[in-house]
Structure formats: C-alpha cells, structure tokens
C-alpha cells in the first residue's frame, strides 16, 4: 500500500492505494466518482478520460500513484456553482449524446482539444477525438457540439 494525496474536483484526498491500482479504479471505487467509466481494457475507447493537471489522460492508463501530488478533474467537477461548463451545455444543445456512456470521456477530451486549438476545423475535431469511441451518435452531433463550444458556425 502506498499513501497518495490527490486533488480531485477541487477537493483534497489522502488514501492508501495498492501500487497497481489504476487511476480510474481509484476514482470510481475509492472516491465514488462513478461519473468516469471504463469501456475497454486496451486504452482504445477513451470512456475513462479525465484531466490530469489540465491535460486529458485516459485514466485506465495511469496508475493512482502517478496522480500523487497532482490535480485531477473529472466530469463531475466541470460544472461550477450549478453552471454547466460550455462544453457540457454544447453537448446537450447539439444532441451529442444518446446512451451517454462515452459522454464523460468525450466531453473531457473535447475540452482538451479546444484548449490546444480554440478554432479547429471539422477535420481537426475528428482527428482530435479519434481516441474516443462512441457507438450511438455516429459522431455527427459531437462534431457540432465542439464547433458550437468553440463559437464557430455550425452546419446543420
């Protein structure tokens, strides 16, 4: 067991974890942050995407101990004072989710994408989301949501 201290969604947690515990399991099982989900075992689906010190990571591919001393933001920490993050609002407005299973990861990745490139083209958006799978939406409205959040014109 290793002791770690992590800032998650603006709160500090100190816990004993097994060295092999993945960040996603730490979040879900020890902290009850079940908004972040697991969709695969090969780091391909992106369902588990969170921010580590402001950059997106696949939390199934990071050990909890690697987050020691760092700051994690999950989907649950995005809305501030009951106000949705603009990306959350855009996903809602553009109907960019159906079952919603990919959504937490998709939103976290989309925010990272705009942080890197505030006005991406459709092609850049598609490339930037390549590591996040969605089986429901065909990505059409997800692309629209990212365009909307970036303040760009959106085709229908």
């Amino acid at each position, binding site marked *: 067991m290793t002791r770690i201290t992590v800032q998650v969604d603006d709160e500090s947690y100190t816990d004993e974890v097994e060295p092999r515990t993945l960040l996603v399991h730490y979040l879900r099982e020890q902290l009850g942050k079940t908004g972040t989900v697991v969709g695969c075992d090969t780091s391909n689906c992106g369902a588990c995407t969170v921010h580590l010190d402001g950059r997106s990571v696949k939390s199934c591919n*990071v050990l909890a101990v690697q987050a020691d001393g760092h700051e994690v933001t999950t989907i649950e920490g995005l809305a501030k004072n009951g106000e949705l993050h603009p990306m959350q609002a855009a996903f809602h407005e553009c109907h960019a*989710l159906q*079952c919603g299973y990919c959504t937490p990861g998709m*939103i976290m990745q989309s925010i990272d994408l705009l942080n890197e490139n505030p006005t991406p083209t459709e092609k850049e958006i598609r490339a930037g989301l390549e590591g996040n799978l*969605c089986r429901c939406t065909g990505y059409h409205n997800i*692309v629209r949501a990212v365009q909307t959040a970036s303040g760009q014109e959106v085709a229908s």
Partner: protein
Amino acid sequence: MTLIEDRPDIAVKEIGRERLRKEDQRLITGRTKWTDNITLPGMLHMAMVRSPFAHANIININVDAAKAAPHVKAVLTGADLGDGQGVLINAWAITTDQKTPVHLPMPSARVSFAGEIVAVVVARTAAAARDAAELVDVDYEELPAALDLRENAEDKVLAHPDLGTNKSAFWKFDSAEAGTGGNVDEAIATARAEGIVIERDYRQQRLIPAFMEPRSVVVDPTGEQITMWSATQVPHIVRFALAATTGVPESKIRVIAPDVGGGFGGKLQVTPEEWIAWAVGRRLGKPVKYTETRSESLMAAHHGRDQWQKLTLAATKEGKVTGLKVELLADLGSYVAVVGGGVPVLGAFMFNAIYKFPAYQFTCQTVFSNKAWTDAYRGAGRPEATFGIERLMDELANELGVDPFVVREMNWITHEEFPFTTVAGLEYDSGNYEAATAKAKESFGYDALRAEQKQRRDSGDRVQLGIGVSTFTEMCGLAPSRVLGSLNYGAGGWEHASVRMLATGKVEVVTGASAHGQGHETAFSQIIADRLGVPFEDVEVLHGDTQTAPKGLDTYGSRSLVVGGEALVKAADKVIEKARPVAAHLLEASVDDIEFSAGRFSVKGTDQGLAIQEIAGAVFVAHNLPDGMEPSLDSDATYDPINFNYPHGTHLCALEIDTETGQITMRKYTCVDDIGNVINPLIVSGQMHGGLTQGIAQALFEEAVYDDSGTLVSGSFVDYLVPTAADMISFDIGHTTTPSLTNTLGTKGVGEAGTIASTPAVVNAVVDALRQFGVDDVQMPCTPERVWKAIQSGGQKQQVPTEAAAVPHFDESEGGTP
C-alpha cells in the same frame, strides 16, 4: 387496418418540436446509474473462468489454489451449481422440430465455444476475484471445432456431436404455396430461356454489437424479493425467464435496468453471466456483482449477422423482375440464443423490399458452429435482406446498362398503389418512394456527381468515384401478437403503459418499453404533454424496473414509439374519459356538454372550465365526486399492434477510391427517409446518424474474425474496428412524410432505418467505382486490401479472408500514454 378516421385533432405543440433531451442533464454531469456503479453492503465480486478452446471436453477442474487465494469466498463450477443454475431459453423455435442442445449457463462436461464459462470465482474485491481466476486449473480434451458455415451445413465437423447434425431448423416461405404469388422456379426457367437471370452468393460477415457500456449484473438476494440489476435491454424478459427456469416465483423477482449504455440488440439476451450471478447470489446469500471486461464482451456477448446468401433473380429482358429466390445459411453459433434462429426469418418478409415481384421463395437453414452465439444486432434480419436485394437490383441495372434508378422505378410500388399487399404477404399501408428518391437525388447532387464520375473515369484518374444507391423499406414495430404466434414465437408483441395523475398536477408515465439511450423520457413526455395538455416539464417517465413498470416487453425492433407510444396514447385517453364526468359534476353541467382541449375541460358555449390539474386535485381529496365514482384518474393500457409499419427511404453514397492503394474515402452521404410523423426531429436525426454509422461500418470496417482453432482474433478494440470520428463524415439527412395509418400518431419506427439502408448503398458505391475493372462484388468489410486485390485481379473471384486490424485506425504508439 386503418385507424385514420378516428384520429383526433392533435394540437401541434410538443409533437414535432426539437425538444432538448430531459435525460441529458445527469449524463453530461456524471450523475449516472450504470449497473457497475452499484455497491451494496457486503457485496462480493465475481470473475469468470472461460474456455480458451472452441470445442473441448472438460476432464477436470482443480479449484484448490483459487480457493486458497486471499479474499476468495467461493469457487464454483457447473457441477457445483447443478440444476439450480437454470437454463438459457430460446424464445423462438422457428420450426416445431428445431434441434437445439440444452443451453446451460455453465456446462460441466463440454464447452462449445471459446469464451464459454467453466468456473466462477467469488471474492471480496473484483481484483482478488480476477487474480484467483488465473489459479483455476482446468484440464481440457480438445475436440475438432466446427468453424466454417458452409462446411458446417454439410456436417463435416459436428459442433454438438450428441445432436448428430449441425442443422437446427429449415424455414421456408413460398409465394405459390402461400397463395401470394407465382412459382419462382418457373419464373427462373422462363428467364433463363428469354430474359435475364442474376445469380450471386453474398456473405454477411459476423459482427459484434459493441455497445460502449460493458455488460454488468448485480444480484441482491437479501430481503423478501431477489433483485437483479442488469445492463439489459429486456428486464421484463429476463424476469420471466428467471422465473421460468430457476424455480423462483415471478412475484419474488425484481429486475432493474438502470442507466444502460447502448444495446443495439446486443443486450436483448438472457445471459450466462446473469444466470450465474443469480445462482451464486442465492447460494451465498450475499449480494454479488459481475462486470465484464471489453475482451470478454467481444468474445462472449452475442454476435450478429453471419450468413451466406444464395440469390437468384429472374427478370424480363427489359428489366421487369419476375421472381426472386433466396437460399440462406445462417450461423447460430454454439446455441440457439433467445431470438437466435428467428433473426434471419425476420428478413424473410423483406427481400422483396419496395418492389412488386410476382414470384418469391425464401428458405433458411440455421446451422450450429463452435463460435459465440448470434442473435439480434441493429436491424436483425432486415439489413441482410435489404443488402441482398439492393445489390441485386444494381447488378440487374448493370446487366441492362442503365442507371440503377431505372430498374428500381420499373419495379417499385408506386405511391398510388398503397395499400399494397406484397408477395411475402405483408400489407404496406403507405409510402411514396418516388418523392423520397426525387428529394434525395436533388440534395445529393446526383447528376453532378455522375458527371464527375464520368470525367474521372475518362481521364483515368488515380482516384475513382463510386456512387451507390439503396432504396429500402423495413417492417418495424415488433409486433402484432397474432403474427408472432403464427411464426411460433414464444411471446406476444404488445406493450403496456400507465398514466398517473398526481395530486399536485404532475403526471407520472410508466412504460414497459425500457430505454437505453433512445430518449424515451423526452419523446414520451412530448406525447403526453400534447395529449393531456400539461407542461412538458411536468411529465415524468418511469421505466426499466419491473416493480415500477410491472408489465412490458421492452425495447427492440424499432417498437418503442410505435407500439409503446400507442399504449401511452390509449392510457392518456382513458384518463381524459375518467376526468370528464368529474368535470361535469364540478361544473354542474351535463357530461355531453363537456369539451376537452389543451388541458382544459369546459362547458360548451360558456367560458366555464377546469384544468386537468384541478380535476386531479379534486379527485385526490375526493370530497366532491359524482356518486359511486372511484377516486382515481389513473389509467393503464396494453396495446397490441394491428400491423407493422413500413418506413422507407432512398440513400445515396459517394466515395472515392484510390486505385493504387485501395483506400476508400467517404465523400458524401445523403438519405431521405419517410418515417411518418416525427415526435422529436432532434432524436430522429441522432438515430439516423448512429444507424448510418453502424451500417457503413459493416460495409467498410467491422468483422468478428476467428482463427483456424476457433479463437476470436478481433477480441479487442484494437482489432474490432468500431469506427472513430476520423473514419466518418457528416451526413446529409432529409425526410418526406407519409403518416403511417396503423397508429394514432402516424409514426413509423426509426431506430434501425439507417443501419438497414446504408450497408448496400456503400457496397454499391464501391462496386460502382470498380465496375470498370471488371469487378462485380467485393466481400464485406470492403477493406483497402480487398479493394486493391479486386482491382488487380480484374474481378476474378477470390476469397480474401479479413485480416485482423485490416484498416488499422489507431496509432499504435498512441496507446494512451498519459
């Protein structure tokens, strides 16, 4: 069969509006209730030990080391569970003499596919269970595995030696025998002499539904009732089957499908994992949980499609089709799953599609193999049928040297001819294929793209353009119970709804159609808001728990709106009828003088009236009701559809093929679908986008590939190519509207339309680009390798097996480094 005359005036308010979804708020903020999120006091975790062999006798299972491992509470085998584990049912024996082996959740003597469960480890943590599962030592005696569909149909290797054959059932429809048309063999003989005969073998590859939420199940045996939470599409069917096979009375079973992360047919099943969790929970008296890994999901959750289609189309030399003969071989996998063999039969009525064929015959032989069992996957039977006929119509057009639309127009049912009884015996109530086609061609820019295609062809451009057409219809709204009965299906096709008027004027709606991403909460609220004249926000839709929604047949087959929605309308109408005498009593008027409109009961010719919410309040306190009236407005309705409904559409695909690499790039995709009246255009467009993507993925990317020993090679998302955002393009979607005449709202199903229509549109486009090289077919998925080889060989017939990761679309180095 026509309901249109008693359709009331529907105030066009909520219906047809692009309402943003009610269900989004919790999903975008992470306040979700997936089954895997559930933790109960003292809950134990299960891990499965699965056979690595496709076919083997189990000689011995040594569980000693696993039992001794830290935190392990139990290790159980099939022998330990014995009869108490129940069996997994097949609800649809397509013939009365269908052969099927007993399907135990955990067999003790022999495994029949790689991934079958042979032991379960129960421990205090999921990690401890998984670790200990590695320690279970199983001795297998490997048996020859039946892996090739065509060879299996010849009984070369037996999947279940005791059965003596791999053939499960043979199902036939013949229009001459049914009296719905002529003799197909005569039509073919005539065409051979003086017309055109097109003969093709098409492969429907094996697919995996690949819903994003892995399946998960929690069983809590504490308390008077045993509760199961499951990531399922069908809580009611699971409850029924648990009662029927495990000896627990139905009244003691509660099944809950909380938030469910996609299904696409893949969660329309009764699964070994559910049954084992049920048995283990009851045996240990403790809550248990099992959540599969993605690898387990791809390997052991059911697969879809997997057919060989032998098709013979007869036509006059002018191109008028005179007969169609369909001979299918369908791979069941190792057992007949819950709907299993019925899936190809759902296609039996759809091969004739939108056309007027005088003669038709469909036969299907279902065949066992030592692979994962197959069952419903989005479209179920209808994509296969649509693919077959739409590919053939293109071949016929090519034979005649005409545009693909020419043969379609020559053969389709014109809009004046509805209602039309087809050669398969179905009555199509409405449609307008001409209108959808005209609109699609215009939006697509058909003529300009054809011109560009010609120019590229003439100039010998390295990049060639292919244009693919698919005009489809489907039967949806499963299903009239009488029809299901005639097909020997084990249940009905009705749906149930309740509407409860609460004292505060809010409305609770209970539906038996349990959603998993479709947006029922929003669409059903819109229907009720209009029907009862209450605010959209005041309607709460409850579903997915057999205790709150005790009756229902769940969500599949594009049935929720057209069957479940109709039940809802009927229940709401009963509420209004119950409220009417109360309104009359309170307004001191005659019942005959009470009118109901936009949520208000008023006295004809006066300005006196009461809102439905006020009536609800009056009924709640019950101080002043008509004599003898039961103080309740709450109403139920169970609706059995009288007919299917038949959405249709015209889909057009343009793609570019790099003839030097075989690389395909989607250029444009246009579809114009007629799905009748639309409740929520936003939800409909989402269903179309997702459906199209799955159909395109069948054409270009996906296949469940097994190696020679029966191991699933595409057993992870590295190799099973669910398309990414970068693989797809934006779609051009439009509608024409001919309301369905078989339900009050005039709606048709939409959940499967995109998937059904898009696969042949894409493959027709691929073949269209390659025709000039002598190619008349490319097997799906049309990978760059297959396309390139087809060009090189000038269309010479060849079998190119699908490579694992044929179109690698993940950058290996990118594997998610933090």
